[in-house]
């Protein structure tokens, strides 16, 4: 099986008030197609930072990140944007939906930004809405949904353009345990049925059990 995303010697430093602090120190990760990887570690250990670097939302101080063998550092804005629409689906802790768009529109956003017609995605939309169980809420706005429902919309949005890789930053960190379990079940199904590669950040052992590999971070290093 090929590698979907690979990080080589990633170093990330932040400079705050002239003090340089190294958050990630020579990290090497390689996630293969179909894997469901959980990044774990204490709060402040750099889990989110690593995930964002892998997704190209931030740039490493040094090191390389290869998405399907392509170095994302040399991409321009246009290419990176296309990568975010087509190759990666993001899910954040605070759902991060667009408040003035309804459920359908939020889900279809990557498609719309890709300049494709929403009409051609009706089937996919139906299927995904079915998977996340929000068929009845298509026309609702994010305000009218519960936290769990909003997170489902965010997951549906991450799926719409059939990306190879889904990155999730504490997707259930803000939800009650029952809803959290449901969401994790959903991720598991997406991983096994839709064959999507998933990397999640979590500090819950339970959530990590849904995955098949754990990357443990401590003091900026993989242990």
């Amino acid at each position: 099986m090929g590698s979907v995303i690979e990080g080589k010697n990633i170093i990330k430093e932040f400079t705050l008030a002239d003090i340089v602090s190294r958050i990630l120190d020579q990290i090497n990760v390689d996630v293969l197609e179909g894997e469901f990887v959980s990044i774990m570690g204490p709060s402040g250990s750099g889990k989110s930072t690593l995930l964002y670097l892998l997704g190209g939302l931030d740039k490493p101080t040094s090191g390389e990140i290869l998405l399907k063998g392509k170095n994302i550092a040399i991409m321009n804005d246009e290419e990176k944007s296309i990568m975010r629409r087509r190759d990666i689906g993001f899910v954040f802790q605070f759902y991060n939906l667009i408040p003035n768009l309804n459920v359908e529109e939020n889900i279809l956003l990557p498609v719309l930004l890709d300049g494709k017609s929403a009409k051609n995605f009706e089937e996919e939309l139906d299927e995904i809405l079915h998977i996340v169980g929000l068929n009845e809420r298509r026309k609702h706005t994010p305000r009218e949904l519960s936290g769990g429902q909003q997170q489902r919309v965010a997951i549906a949005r991450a799926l719409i353009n059939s990306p190879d890789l889904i990155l999730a930053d504490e997707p259930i960190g803000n939800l009650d345990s029952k809803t959290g379990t449901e969401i994790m079940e959903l991720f598991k199904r997406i991983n096994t049925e839709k064959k999507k590669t998933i990397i999640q950040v979590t500090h819950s052992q339970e959530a990590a059990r849904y995955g098949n590999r754990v990357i443990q971070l401590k003091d900026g290093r993989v242990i």
Partner: protein
Amino acid sequence: MMQIILKFIIKNIQENKFRSFLILLAIILSTALFFASNAVSYSFSKTIVAQMKSTYGETDIVVKPNKDNKASYISEYIVKNHPEIGLVMGVNQVNGIYETGSDEDETFTLFATDIDKLKKVNPFELIEKTDSEVFSGYEIIISSSTAEKYHLGLGDKIKLSVKNVNYKFKITGIAAPSMLFGSEQQNRFALVPKKTLDNILNTSGRSSQVYIKSISGSNIKEVIASLKSELKRYKVDVDEAVNSADIESQLSTIKIPFMAISILVLIMSIFIIYTSFKVIMAERLPIIGTFRSIGATEKKTRNIMLNESLAYGVIGGCVGIPLGIAILAGMLGVISASNPRGMDIELGIQMGNVIYSFMVAVGVSFFSAYIPIKKASKLPLKDVIFGKLEEDGYGKKKKYKLKVAILICAIVIPYIVPSSLVIPVGVLSILVIIIMLLQVVPVLLRVVTFMLEGIYGSLFGNQGVLAIKEIKGNDNISQNIGLLALSISTMLFVYILSGTMEGLITNASQGAKYEIATMSMEQEMNKSLLNRLKTVSGVGKVSLLYKVVAKDKDSGQSMGAIIGINANDELDFYDTRVRDVADVKPLLDKLHEGRNILVKEAVLSKLNLKVGDTINIELPKGYKPYKIIGILTSATGDILAGYNYVKTDFKQTDYASIRVKSDTPDETVKAIKEMYGDNRNFTATLKETVVTMKNMFGILFGILKGFAAVLLVIGIFGIINNLVIDFLQRRRVIAMYKSVGMSKAQLTNIMIIKAVTSGLLGGLFGITTTILELKVLDKIMTASVGIVPIDYSIPLFITAFVAGVVITLIGTIAPLMRGQKLQIIEAIKYE
């Protein structure tokens, strides 16, 4: 704990410097304009009063022959001794022309009265004088400034022409340029012995005016009343010499247009402060929640916020009023400078106005902030903690329905009220239209975006659709559209009105074939005046006009002005034109043969009438049917009728004006003025009138345009502020868009589409508002001055669209650049 809140607020103000600046700017500028508008008529009246006082001195009552009196002079001895009267002095005044040798002759006001009495009530200081003890014969006292200007000195002789007879006066005194000699902007002032002037004017010792000084402390109104009854049989008018209250109220119309725009500026300030405080409260909700949850009372939290708005008001008043004084000084300077022979208008500052304007500043700031503050502090704790500031959809909808209903009422009402009420109702409805339009912009926006979605989809693809969705329901954008609409409509209104007036003045003089128009304010405008006029040198043919304002009896609508003409000579005086009629004369003759009228197209379309129809015109008693026999295309008036019918039907004893032909218009005007003597009159050449009118309107509209520009500036700052707020509020959303793959180019496109669209919509709403306002104005004008065809200028409307787009685009530059630079993680990571 309160200190912590206070600290928080101060920090909040510091962090939002631009917004605080905007609130202050709005209050300061609106207070300044409000103050200046209020003070302008007072300054005029103060100047006039000062000028009059310089003539009257301590005398406070004037007696002079009235309209029924055949004689122009009365004896001062008709005023009998009266315990409350201290001094009585007869006065004669006449103009004397001094040939200066240059183009412009100088006019002297020759003033004559008992010099000893004059010294008591209105003393003047002689800088130089000859030895002669008595002031008699052909002696004259001039001011030192006159002496300087014409290089005259003691003992010099000066030749003055009074009523076309030359007299030589010897200068025996030179007075300091103050008091009587203090206001020489229009005429030079000179004192001559009473006996001498009496001889020249042949008054046999009588006077054209009698000045009376009442004993100090007496009630002037009562003295006047008793004098009136005592002197009834002498056919005289008894008036207060200087009635400043009267003068001010007469002049108060000057301030109306300025006041109107100041009120618009105030409305805009209220709008800006209200919306700013809405945002401020939304930002502070978390801390309010925190403090409320640990026990701060609702009232205390509210009071702290209200004090903040009060502080804005106080600062606004303190800075705004001095600025207002500066603006007023500027306005008066412009007015004075533009008519060099006119008066220098002094700055008049009333304490009342200062206090009033200060209260307006504080009041506007306080009450605009009050509603959002109250709303936030009244919220149930739960909503505060969850940051819910918005009302639920249902309550909002109900309110919008009410607002739309009020708006429609305001548009319709001026059309259905009787014409006597059109002016106050119309003015009110213009204000209501503006306020309500601002309120219903969100609804209009919803409707418009709904319609635009499809169009934008096909025009700009998915990005267009996303842009429209960004606009829909966005408070900041609807506020911007409101601000744009208000600024643009005020600008358009002033510009269109200015263009209309200029066109009107130009049109009115086109086709006129006479050189001079004259009317008397004091004498009866009748046959005898006409005959006297004919004897004045330089006067050629003359023609009289009647003028009345007409109303359609059936609809109650006002029809404009009817001009009563004499068909026999009308074509010599005006190039009257009738649509599709080459030879107008037979048609004009018909005006005398029956109740026939020629009517302007605008009147016909207003009343839905056509040629051949008969209309019942309301008269002082009853009504009479008039038949429409043609469409008037020249600019004499709205309606032409035969003078004989206007005179009898409308019971007119006086002409409205007399038109005069002359080969030497300038000289003839002088001669006519001399014929009137002391009687107030308006006499001017047509050319002069057009120039003066254009000048006057030019100044008026120049200042109004300046006011409108101030409004626009506040509006632009408000728009920029909103765009910045919009960006800050949407940072997370933008980061979100970027995280799902919106590229910089796409972000730019969407922001530009948003900006252009809101600019265009601002232009559209602005133009709509303007048209609604002008429709009401049209009604007001028809009822008051006659039909004024408003010049809806297409280029101006296009400019409005362009301006709207340019303003929003400029305001979008900063958010655009910050949006480009926005780091996704910065915006997402930290809540």
